[in-house]
């Protein structure tokens, strides 16, 4: 057993999983409250990555930043969160709210339309070229933590730490604050919550803002750790984030966190070991097969996900 490889894959999996978890949280929050699959969520992540890239360029670029690197990263994340939060609110206001009483297929199609609209708008605004965060110029690759022969780049640790901090903050917000209580009440029964004096529209708007802000942060983290961003990157992250949300139990916040990490680890470990496990029959190219097989198995065997509760329908 090559332990170095295993630890490296675990680090890769947790990094990837942290990003998926942030995306899955947005899916879960919106689904929990509106029972809507916000298929444009991955594209919000992409917009966040571009906002972060814009702030990076505005503050001198990776080679010659005009502020300390940690301040720069914080500013990039905050700007992306604010920008994407506002974008999320706009999407809710113009694409979903008018369809709130329509059949469930209508907002789903509207979400698809929003996804293409955002993607093509970014193509029009920024062109088709890949944009680089040049993270290796921003933070030297030698800076990190050594585990024996293994080195973990500090940016990976920042990504994992930032994602963890945001997940804990969200969990505290949902469980310990008045807004969180209102969100939970709206998720359980929107009409009853309204009758209890909760401004449901306001709760929905805030939910979209928070979920989209998390996606924006995830976009910057992706740019920092993987270096390259482009206008169609949102689709892949959106799809994996959605898978993570379903596996964890869509609507459940701890479920989204767990699902993200689970999918990230499954993807990384399958790339690393699928060839050995199948005696060379399948190669690393089939890692997505494993990820989506997990999705199919959960849909068949435990559709409510790991943390979800089975839906009881009363006649």
């Amino acid at each position, binding site marked *: 057993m090559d332990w170095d490889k295993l630890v*490296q894959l675990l680090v*890769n999996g947790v990094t990837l999983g942290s990003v998926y978890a942030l995306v899955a949280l947005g899916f879960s929050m919106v689904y929990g409250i509106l029972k809507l699959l916000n298929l444009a969520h991955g594209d919000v992540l992409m917009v966040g990555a571009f906002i972060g890239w814009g702030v990076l360029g505005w503050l001198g670029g990776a080679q010659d930043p005009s502020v300390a690197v940690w301040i720069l990263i914080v500013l990039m994340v905050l700007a992306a969160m604010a920008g994407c939060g506002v974008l999320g609110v706009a999407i809710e206001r113009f694409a979903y709210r008018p369809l709130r009483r329509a059949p469930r297929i209508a907002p789903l199609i509207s979400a698809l339309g929003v996804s293409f609209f955002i993607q093509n708008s970014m193509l029009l605004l920024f062109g088709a070229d890949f944009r*680089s965060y040049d993270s290796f110029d921003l933070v030297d690759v030698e800076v990190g933590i050594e585990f024996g022969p293994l080195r973990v780049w500090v940016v990976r640790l920042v990504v994992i730490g930032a994602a963890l901090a945001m997940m804990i903050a969200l969990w505290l917000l949902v469980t310990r604050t008045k807004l969180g209580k209102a969100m939970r009440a709206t998720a359980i029964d929107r009409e009853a919550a309204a009758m209890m004096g909760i401004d449901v529209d306001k709760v929905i708007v805030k939910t979209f803002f928070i979920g989209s802000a998390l996606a924006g942060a995830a976009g910057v983290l992706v740019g920092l750790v993987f270096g390259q961003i482009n206008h169609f990157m949102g689709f892949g992250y959106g799809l994996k984030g959605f898978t993570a949300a379903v596996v964890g139990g869509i609507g459940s916040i701890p479920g989204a966190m767990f699902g993200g990490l689970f999918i990230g680890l499954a993807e990384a470990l399958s790339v*690393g070991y699928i060839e050995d496990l199948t005696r060379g029959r399948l*190669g690393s*190219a089939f890692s997505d097969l494993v990820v989506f097989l997990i999705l199919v198995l959960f849909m068949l065997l435990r559709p409510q996900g790991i943390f979800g509760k089975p839906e009881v329908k009363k006649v």
Partner: protein
Amino acid sequence: MRRGLIATAIAVLAFAAVGTAAVAKTTGPAAPAQLAACTNVSLGVLAPLTGPAAFLGQEQLSWARFAVSQYNRANGTRFKVALGDSQLSASLARTVGRRFVANDDIMAVVGGSTSQSVISSAGLFERVGLVSISGSATRTDLTSGQFSTFFRVVPHDAIQSPNIVRYVAGNLRARQVVVLDSQDDYSVPLSGAVARGLRARNVEVDRESVAADETDFSSIVANVSDDADVVVFATQTASAAQTLSNQLREQGKDAIVFGTDGAYSPTQYKPRLGYVSSFANDLRFLRSARSIVRAYNRFSNNKAFGTFGPPSYMAAWVAMGAIQRACADGNATRSEVTTQVRRTNTPSILGGRVQFTRRGDVRASKFYIFRVNNGTYRLVG
């Protein structure tokens, strides 16, 4: 409920029937050759103008437009360019191909840029006798006789793979190599040939594969042995080669990335140390091309370019020359243009002359190997 289901089923069946009819229409017998007046002639440019390989498609388009502008000025012609965006997708290339076939003004196509776009569109062009000339599709079997109206001005991968093998095993003296493909019609056969060639020279080879749109290579890199000397990456996107190179460094692996064709991009692939094999020389390394480089810089307002643009310039130039010869009597058919392309014998801005073999390959061509140091490219082989 049942009525609804039946209605949906009927709608789906009707949709399928219309789709089948449409497909049957486009795959039907060859259209008769139409004589076209040579007054309003366009070149179709089939390239990935958006998407992950847009950097190469935009470069090709820019050089094709430059060729048209220069040719028109020199010959008093009025050629135009019609755009077709394949986005690196075989199905989109086919859709664009149908559009080009239906447009009678298009007498020749520059492209497709990638092997998969040629595979999906060249058959359509062949049916109506429309010639297509690629400046970058290198898959060997494209000129095995399956597409009689397809030509290319760059060499094929049966020349590239032994070249890479020779350099990696001979010049770099690599003993352990990872060969990585990006799961498409271009990179899988090329990677396979490179892996076989290296094994034949007793080099230890590990084969890996990633999706073409992958942005995270960290888990693939974990599979790369600490003792590996080189990772040969057959890719169509330079940014992917750059990310792979970064992540090898991140994990403390000493292996260097040896990219192919699509990796040639001084703005996007700039590792500390790396190599690129390319189907064309960089014009900036050719003394004889100084004036054309200056003219292009003026034309494009100093737009950056690599090795993708100039071959497309030549493809467009060859196409326009053939159309002009076919139009000598005032009108021409697409088949006449194809015949004239076959007879091409014209000087190339890349050095030598462009002449085609019976199967559509360019004669006397070779691949070039560049060493990359922090974004500086130097021709080494």
